[in-house]
């Protein structure tokens, strides 16, 4: 049962990573990247590394997307 959850999480991770590379709108890419970080945090928890999961949830989902959105607001939104 837990294997099915892990496989689903990894599939979603791959979809997010490929989507970030292909999408043209930078704001959508940032949102997709933060969802990549959220899924990655759950996977770290599944790999029994709870402290890495905590850092990933705070930095990879919150702070990095905030900093990238701040950078986009200073520059252009499309590539």
């Amino acid at each position: 049962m837990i294997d099915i959850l892990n496989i689903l999480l990894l599939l979603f991770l791959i979809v997010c990573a490929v989507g970030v590379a292909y999408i043209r709108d930078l704001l959508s890419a940032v949102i997709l990247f933060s969802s990549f970080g959220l899924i990655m945090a759950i996977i770290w928890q599944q790999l029994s590394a709870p402290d890495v999961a905590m850092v990933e949830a705070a930095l990879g989902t919150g702070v990095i997307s905030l900093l990238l959105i701040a950078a986009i607001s200073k520059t252009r939104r499309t590539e």
Partner: protein
Amino acid sequence: MEDQIARITSRLVVPFIQVYGIYIILHGHLSPGGSFSGGAIFGASLVLVALSFNLEAGSKQIPHNTASILESGGALGYIITGLVAIAMGGYYLSNKAAGFPMGEAGSLFSAGAIFIITIFVGIKVASTIVTLFYYIIEGEK
């Protein structure tokens, strides 16, 4: 761009995030997490205030000068804790050998110098994240 939903949600959520961050910093030597995780969570809550209200509300919570002073002070506290260990007769950053009080294992006030160092590093990480955000938003002066 003031948003009603974002403002009220963040007003409700921010105190809980800050208490959680302080809890993780203080229990760094007992449970998963520690200074870096807790500091990142605490800094993210301060950035959330600046993002959902406006920059003035964010800088009322923690002014820029205070953030830079705390950032340098955290690193300085780390160094001073290491030097205190030398003054008490151990190596740099040595813990039990220098005679820091160990306390009872498993309780909150234990592990001697690690407890002090964790607090300083947590302060440094939190203020670094706030300073990074302000530098990107306002540009270097």
